[in-house]
């Protein structure tokens, strides 16, 4: 019994919520809405009455369960260690089981619309950008939606890649005397938008003598489906990815987005609990799944020689599912601090959710925007020129916020700075 297959799986968790209210201090949604259902204990109380059979799982209730970015801030602040994010995920899955996909049709509908737009955009290339998106004056990068498809017109989107990341590279990227062979799980955002991030990951791994394979049959990580309760789709995607990676074989799977990391490390095993064959596969890959920062600090320590100067003042935003979800927060900082020239300035509360939360921003664009603006104010307070993070979804949200606030920050993945440093280092060496 997992949280994806039965609401009963969370009954013990719900019982442990003593309604102390500590979650109010940290829940980003609560802070915007100031309303009891928005905070963890409120949603827990809904699940409680559901489990007791004292209420129906109405569409209204499903809507309340959508009020969560699964940022886990409440979990970290809970004296009773109640995993309220899991309770919400279980409730969403239960809603889909009881009511069909109906309650989340909005999400799916919008995502589909968006995906069709992307696919279309990929085909017609740059012409599409002008039709759907309005370039932002004076900016080298990014555009706003010309028409509101439910994402809010304010969100600034990165330019679509001219060619998806995965078709830019061969399946196997060889290096001399490889220390290890890793399989790179790119995730959708790197594939469609942030090819620069993907390139940085590959470049850095190459410098560190790691052979990279990019399994061609990989797809979406499945998290957008699993967090919305669409368990069958999530399962299908999990299996597809496991098969794709199993076929290629590798010593490790490397991810550079926080949802991908969560998927490989935790969610696939939970999703596939009742399918022993796949469960075994999921457990096997979970044991060798690493976030790129973690990998470069703990598994193959990144080379300190050959790092060139990068003159930047950088502030780092902790992605929720990397920081609280995978307990990775020291590693990216260690990498940033070891790059010569970088001055790391911590923002106030770097671990607070940026409000993107994947499809959350599709369901609740306005809330997402408001939560994001708090983050942007904290960034502005650091007087830096670069925001580093370790997740493409956070990057999108932060970039959009920075542009809308009229700030000049460049928003990048830690790996882009590391790759930049290696590149500068090798240029300097060549000049000598």
């Amino acid at each position, binding site marked *: 019994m997992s949280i994806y297959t039965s609401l009963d799986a969370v009954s013990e968790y719900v*019982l*442990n919520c*003593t*309604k*102390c*209210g*500590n979650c*109010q*201090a940290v829940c980003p949604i609560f802070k915007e809405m*100031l*309303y*009891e*259902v928005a905070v963890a*204990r*409120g*949603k827990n*109380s*809904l699940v409680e*009455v559901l489990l007791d059979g004292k*209420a129906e799982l*109405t569409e*209204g*209730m499903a*809507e*309340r369960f959508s009020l969560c970015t699964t940022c886990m801030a409440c979990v970290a602040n809970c*004296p*009773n*260690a109640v995993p309220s994010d899991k309770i919400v995920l279980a409730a969403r899955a239960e809603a889909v089981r009881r009511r069909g996909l109906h309650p989340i049709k909005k999400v799916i509908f919008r995502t589909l619309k968006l995906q069709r737009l992307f696919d279309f955009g990929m085909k017609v290339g740059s012409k599409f950008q002008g039709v759907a998106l309005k370039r932002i004056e004076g900016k080298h990068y990014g555009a706003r939606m010309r028409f509101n498809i439910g994402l809010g017109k304010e969100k600034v989107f990165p330019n679509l890649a001219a060619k998806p990341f995965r078709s830019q590279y061969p399946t196997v990227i060889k290096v001399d005397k490889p220390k290890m062979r890793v399989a790179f799980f790119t995730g959708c955002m790197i594939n469609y938008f942030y090819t620069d991030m993907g390139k940085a990951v590959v470049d850095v791994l190459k410098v560190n003598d790691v052979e990279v394979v990019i399994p061609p049959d990989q797809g979406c990580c499945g998290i957008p489906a699993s967090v919305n309760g669409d368990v069958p789709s999530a399962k299908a995607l999990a299996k597809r990815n496991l098969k794709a990676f199993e076929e290629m074989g590798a010593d490790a799977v490397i991810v550079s987005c926080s949802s991908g990391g969560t998927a490989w490390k935790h969610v696939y095993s939970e999703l596939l609990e009742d399918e022993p064959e796949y469960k075994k596969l999921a457990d096997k890959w979970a044991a060798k799944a690493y976030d790129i920062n973690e990998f470069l600090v703990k598994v193959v320590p990144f080379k300190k020689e050959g790092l060139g100067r990068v003159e930047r003042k950088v502030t780092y935003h902790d992605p929720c599912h990397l920081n609280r979800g995978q307990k990775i927060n020291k590693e990216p900082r260690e990498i940033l601090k070891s790059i010569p020239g970088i001055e790391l300035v911590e923002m106030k509360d770097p671990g607070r959710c940026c409000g993107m939360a994947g499809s959350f921003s599709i369901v609740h664009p306005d809330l997402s925007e408001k939560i994001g603006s708090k983050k942007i104010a904290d960034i502005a307070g650091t007087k830096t020129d670069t925001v580093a993070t370790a997740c493409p979804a956070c990057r999108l949200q932060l970039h959009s916020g920075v542009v809308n606030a009229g700030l000049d920050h460049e928003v990048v993945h830690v790996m882009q700075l590391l790759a930049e440093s290696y590149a500068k280092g090798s240029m300097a060496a060549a000049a000598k």
Partner: protein
Amino acid sequence: MFNQEVLNELIKALGKDKVLSDREDLIAYSYDATAAVPRQEPDVVVTPTSTEDVVEVVKIANRYKLPIYPRGSGTNLSGGAIPLQKGIVLTTWKMNKILELDTDNLVATVQPGVVIQALNDEAMKHGLMYPPDPGTVSTATMGGSVSECSGGLKGLKYGVTKHYVMGLEVVLGSGEVIKWGGKTVKNVSGYDLTALFTGAEGTLGIITKILVKLTPIPEAKKSLLAVFDDLDKAGNAISDIIRHKVIPATLEILDKVTIGTVENFTHAGLPTDAEAVLLIEVDGYKEVVEREAPIVEKVCRDNGAVDIKVAKTDEERDKIWFARRNALPSLAQVKPALVLEDATVPRSKIPDIIKEIRKIAEKYNLLIGTYGHAGDGNLHPTIVIDPRDEDEVQRMHKAVDEIFHAAIGLGGTLSGEHGIGIGKVRYLPLEFGEAGVRVIRRIKEALDPNYVLNPGKMVLREE
């Protein structure tokens, strides 16, 4: 009686976005942080943003004879915010503005929905603080903490909420608005209604503005931890510190059960064979702290402390407070529910009440961790229970009953800071007799004759 008409009137008066009536929303207003009390969903929830809004709600409630349950953050531990008789829950979360911070008079004026820590953050910018700091300082509202007269860790030196409230604006049960008190240190005009409404648990009026005193942030502080192998020795040390004319900002105690439970879950290397641990912090000017800390250390040693640690760095200070911070979370790991009592006795009776509580725990076969504000005589015997175990719940109720009797027997009170609310109402005669209860009732009926405000709490209609 609640009906569509009431709902329409509320919407007409306040606007649609300030009225919640979907069952999915009401469910989440059926509780507060209190364990083992009944839950009840209200008929409707309103979120006023101004005093005028509150007046409108009170008028409508009176017209339809509907109860109003004021609610801050719902973190109280006496059932104070539970809408026992349904009706209207009035939440103050959206009345959350700091209206003025007057650094000349060292006062602040806030709306009731301001979270205590938010006021502190603002005051800190001016080198000031608002000392009352319940464990919920970053969630509880000013309105809720004034209504419960919350205490906290710094009570011994800095006092509790009532020592800081200088004035209030209150909407009475009739819908009239009164303002009482003010920025002057001295004020003897009329009865002290400011004091009356402080700690009234929302039964006499709805607080819509609060004027509080601020104090300068102390320049320095120093923390000590003293371990005792005997409860009486720890008790003597507590009184002896005060006898030496040192008033620590904080003087906390953890009993053996609590220490053992924390150690069990954190493996931090706490002295599990100790009978009691005292945590002491002195604060003030650097020079004062440098003089007081050694006195405290010496007194503890003279009273037989087997180990003493003095924090030299912030990190060490953090370590010293680790066990205290983890007391509640660790007890919570043992079983799902916690019943937090706050029986309070004169400071000198701390060892006696801890021993009594231990006997009671044995008698009813319960795990009771006792810790709390030793300097204030305010302990938090925390009973861990599984609410599904009916027998255990029954034993818990009996134990609570005996703890109350023990505290009163030692010259103490039913509640030091958590309030009377639902559960302790029937014990009030124990503390001040039937005549005392009648006085409370007459006050209630003078100000809220229809029992519109928070009915079922603190004071009940004559049977």
